[in-house]
């Protein structure tokens, strides 16, 4: 596995540790926020890409060839902001009694996968802006196969919508 894959695993591991420390109740609040953010991005990519391309092209004069890069950078920044909001300040908490470290670790790792995996995907699509002179993405076969499993590559907006709705129902359901 190359250095980028290693960074991805380290970030995922860090999120796992954070999950153990913060507890499963708080981590689930972050999960739902990340899923909702990804849903918005996937929806934008699937349904409004043409309109956004036209808007960027005609209003801001962004060349059509640069639009995918522009959108990928926007997606990465959007995800970072949402993740920061999810962890900082007043957060969404699930009414869960369990303090199991295992569940905290599991949900933390899922959050890490959703965040780090999506960042990897979007930065890769954007061509590693500001880092393109440092990062030379020559991936081996395993890394290439892992890249096919990054969240934006496998989660459709329909699946994300189903997850977000199910999690919201479980949040209010007694």
């Amino acid at each position, binding site marked *: 596995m190359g250095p980028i894959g290693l960074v991805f695993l380290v970030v995922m591991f860090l999120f796992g540790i954070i999950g153990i420390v913060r507890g499963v109740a708080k981590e689930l609040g972050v999960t739902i926020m990340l899923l909702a953010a990804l849903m918005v991005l996937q929806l934008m990519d699937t349904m409004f890409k043409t309109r956004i391309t036209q808007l960027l092209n005609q209003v801001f004069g962004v060349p059509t060839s640069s639009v995918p890069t522009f959108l990928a950078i926007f997606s990465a920044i959007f995800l970072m902001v949402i993740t920061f909001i999810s962890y*900082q300040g007043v957060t969404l908490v699930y009414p869960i009694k369990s*303090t199991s470290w295992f569940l905290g670790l599991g949900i933390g790792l899922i959050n890490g996968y959703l965040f780090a995996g999506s960042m990897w995907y979007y930065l890769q699509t954007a061509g590693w802006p500001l880092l393109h002179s440092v990062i030379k993405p020559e991936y081996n076969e395993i890394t290439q196969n892992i890249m096919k499993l990054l969240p934006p590559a496998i989660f459709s907006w329909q699946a994300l919508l189903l997850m977000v709705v199910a999690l919201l129902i479980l949040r209010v359901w007694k």
Partner: protein
Amino acid sequence: MSVTFLVFLAIVWGSFGLWGYLRGWKAALVMLVLIVGSLLALAIAPNQVKQIFDYFNKAVGLMTGGTKPLINTAPSSLVVFLLNGAVIFGFLLGLLKIFRAKSTFMGFLIGFINGYLYTAYMLAALFPQRAILPLPIKIPGLSTVSLSTAAASPPSAGLPGTFASYLEQILKMPCLPTAVVAGVFLFILLTVLLGNRGGGGGGGGGGGRKG
């Protein structure tokens, strides 16, 4: 075949055994029942199992409009799919409180048997030239090789190499993306449902809390 390959097998068996010891014999037994059940289904009625997956592939194809089958229905692929499904499902079921028991040697032993069955069939399905472990349940399309044949096969690239090639085979499975999405969803759902039953102080109550 090399010593590192045997070390790799020992690590997998030990991990299964350790899990059985930590969770208790009931959780290990649930996994064993699921593994044996899925193997028996493939041994007794392979065509029916294949047909079920064919129907599933057709249904997915109709919904997504794709022509490529989601799950490969070759015997080796079905073994990999069902065996991994049984292990993951058994692991999740083992987290339920009703399947919890004291840490005993019996749990380790059943966990060890789970590990043996898992590696024996996965080797036969993914690395037929290294399938040295006898298969207690005969499945059409799967076979083992003798120690001398396995010894004559080209040496593996050490423990990391064995693990890497094993990982590579799993990562190439066409159903893996769907399995990851379903796995993430199921784990979150199970966490919410199990967490509500769990003891301890923790997070109860309402919405806004300081992160």
